[in-house]
């Protein structure tokens, strides 16, 4: 009986010992786990990734250490000896348990020892024999763990070292401003839950722009999508009926353009295609066809009637480039581009509209003039004023940023500014008029004479062209600077 009691007590002691060891091991592993977690959280946060994943070592290391101890088998003899040492039992329990589990003959002294140890074991409480002892680094580990969890709980990008794309951020803010004005304008005419939803989404996007590690380009894309969604919603238009009509007209035009393309393809395959002919007839007569599409169809039909399929194909090929929506993408610079419109400008915020690159008028101080802004019914007065103040604040710096001066690789020393040529004579014309020598040839005119001609020509051009006053001063200053009489 004593032996059974002793063995049972030894098992309890061993179980408690294992538990204490497991908790101690977990506590011991907490400090390195927390340190590693903190390192990973910082790394992930600074790189703009979700930081909570870095907390994994905080749980895995202590759990692994505890599991390793728990997987150890119960060691009765060791636990009994340890209990002896902790309770000052002078190796009674350990020796007795060891004797009990061994195959040694039971001497009289051993039997008395077992009885003595069993009586001692009845008084032993496992918790008293194995008090939980935490490792010294536990407090540090806890502090590190709290720090890691706190850092992981910060909003994403709070600690990001990647600075937002400045241009994209500026474009996104500008886009947000325009969208806000647009929503404000719409809200004057309409109050709907969808509008409120748009406002909420816009506010969320604006808030995200204030985050230090924000991906401004992504926010800009989302704003662009929001803008498109807003403008493509007929129920949110200021005049729903007109918006629906406009949408229907646009759909009809797109359909007409597609049919025009199909007719061209059919004619290319079979110049005597009846299908193409009937399609062109329908397009020429259809009321929903635009004037351009109708005209192209009529011209192509006329050529077919004259037996000239090639002329019809040419007319169709020419007309395909004029279809709305279905043709090439309207590029910025092809006319006055209202703020917030034009996919090209929104999708490429860093790419500024280049004057002279399009086929229309240069957007050099003209695309956003007060005149154009005021003509747009959907723009509010405040927005126009603000926009004007932004765009006309410092033209010199803006122009230099957009068009850094460069020198063309021409056989002359003429400095040329890229852009659309004005109406007056250019420097090249002036050079031809003066009989510009080739490289290495002797000069044909005196410097004084050439200077006067160039100056007069330049001043005439300045007076004639629409050049900002600051630029005029630059031209005058230049010629005064090189005046040989001074």
């Amino acid at each position, binding site marked *: 009986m004593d032996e059974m009691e002793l063995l049972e007590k030894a098992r309890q002691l061993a179980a408690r010992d294992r538990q204490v060891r497991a908790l101690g091991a977990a506590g011991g592993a907490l400090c390195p786990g927390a340190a590693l977690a903190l390192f990973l959280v910082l790394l992930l946060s600074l790189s703009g990734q979700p930081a909570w994943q870095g907390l994994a070592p905080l749980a895995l290391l202590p759990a692994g250490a505890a599991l390793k101890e728990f997987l150890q088998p119960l060691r009765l003899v060791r636990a009994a000896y340890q209990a002896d040492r902790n309770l000052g039992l002078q190796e009674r329990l350990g020796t007795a348990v060891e004797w009990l589990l061994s195959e040694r003959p039971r001497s009289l002294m*051993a039997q008395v020892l077992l009885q003595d140890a069993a009586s001692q074991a009845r008084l032993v409480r496992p918790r008293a024999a194995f008090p939980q002892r935490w490792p010294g680094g536990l407090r540090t580990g806890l502090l590190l763990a709290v720090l890691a969890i706190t850092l992981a709980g910060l909003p994403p990008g709070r600690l990001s070292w990647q600075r937002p794309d400045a241009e994209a951020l500026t474009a996104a803010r500008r886009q947000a401003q325009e969208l806000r004005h647009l929503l404000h304008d719409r809200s004057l005419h309409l109050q709907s839950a969808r509008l409120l939803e748009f406002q909420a989404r816009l506010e969320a996007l604006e808030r995200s722009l204030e985050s230090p590690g924000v991906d401004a380009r992504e926010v800009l894309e989302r704003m662009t999508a929001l803008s498109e969604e807003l403008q493509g919603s007929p129920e949110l238009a200021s005049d729903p009926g007109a918006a629906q009509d406009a949408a229907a007209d646009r759909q009809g035009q797109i359909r007409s353009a597609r049919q025009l393309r199909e007719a061209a393809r059919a004619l290319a395959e079979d110049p005597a295609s009846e299908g193409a002919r009937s399609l062109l007839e329908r397009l020429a007569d259809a009321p929903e066809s635009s004037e351009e599409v109708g005209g192209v169809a009529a011209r192509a039909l006329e050529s077919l009637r004259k037996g000239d399929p090639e002329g019809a194909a040419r007319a169709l090929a020419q007309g395909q480039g004029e279809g709305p929506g279905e043709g090439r993408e309207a590029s910025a610079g092809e006319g006055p581009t209202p703020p917030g419109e034009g996919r090209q400008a929104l999708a490429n915020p860093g790419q500024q509209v280049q004057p002279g690159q399009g086929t229309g008028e240069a957007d050099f101080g003209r695309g956003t003039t007060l005149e154009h802004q005021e003509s747009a019914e959907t723009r509010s007065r405040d927005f126009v004023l603000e926009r004007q103040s932004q765009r006309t604040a410092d033209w010199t710096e803006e122009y230099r940023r957009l068009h850094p001066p460069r020198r063309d690789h021409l056989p002359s020393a003429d400095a040329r500014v890229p852009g659309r040529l004005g109406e007056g004579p250019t420097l090249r014309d002036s050079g031809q008029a003066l009989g510009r020598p080739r490289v290495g040839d002797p000069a044909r005119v005196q410097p004084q004479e050439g200077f006067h001609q160039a100056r007069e020509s330049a001043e005439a051009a300045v007076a004639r062209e629409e050049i900002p006053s600051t630029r005029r001063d630059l031209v005058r200053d230049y010629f005064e600077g090189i005046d040989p009489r001074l």
Partner: protein
Amino acid sequence: MSQPPLTDRVRHFEETFGRLRRELTRVVVGQSDLVEHVLLALVAEGHVLLEGLPGLGKTLLVRTLAQALDLSFSRIQFTPDLMPADISGTTLVEETPEGRRTFRFSPGPVFANLVLADEINRATPKTQSALLEAMQEGSVTIAGERRELPRPFLVMATQNPIEMEGTYPLPEAQVDRFLFKLQVGFPEPEDLVGILDQTTGNQVPRVEAVCDAGTLLEMGRLAREVVAGSAVLGYAARLVLATHPDRPEAPEPIRRYIRYGSSPRGGQALIRAARVRAMVSGRYNVALEDIQAVLRPCLRHRLIRSFEGEAEGLEPDQLLEELLRTVPPEDPAR
């Protein structure tokens, strides 16, 4: 005849040991540790080497012990001209009344239960070695005849650590045969007062015999039955191994100042003495503290210091202290 229950025997052991201790401490004032260790060695049937300055009561202690034990006692004063036969005895030729001559063995002083070898280091090595067989085997061989010594047979040798001129230091083999080497220290002031008061008057304390040879042998048998667990045996083994400078577990001072460590006989001495100490404490098992308590007297004479150790004047006890500090009681491999 059936033996009494074990618990009664253990109680009798404790009582007898306690009475012996009381008798000795009545005469030997202020040397309680010394008395305790002498009694431990007595029960463990181990020989004791007492080292101390003259006049500290070494001889008194052994003589008092002999009186308290009711054992045969003999004293041998070792001198340089002492011969081995003076210790072990000799064979004499005797003539009978009929005129016949016969050989008769005249036993030497070694044939006693308790032998006091006073100033053992003053005899020549030849004479010292005469004690070797007696101490280890409990017998002497004279003229080709092996003679058993009475049991219990205990040698209490004394030696003076000073006045080394004209002495013969005990060889290591002989020193190793002593269970304990006890150092007799100078008494504390209050003990000295007691000694002066007690030994200078007419009334000398009378010692009563409280134990005979049979009781002493029974006590020894009982002590050897005390259970020693593997943790205790392992601890003793690790301690002994750590005294060897070439062992990895040896601490740095041992490596530096010790030339040879303890023999396995040192480990045996540890366990034997620890068993007796456990029994004296009323336990049925040996504890780690028993080992620690008897470590110094068991091992101090078994450590052979290196030249550097001797030059530094480092005492073996200091190294054993270091050993206790550095060798963990629990087995690291368990």
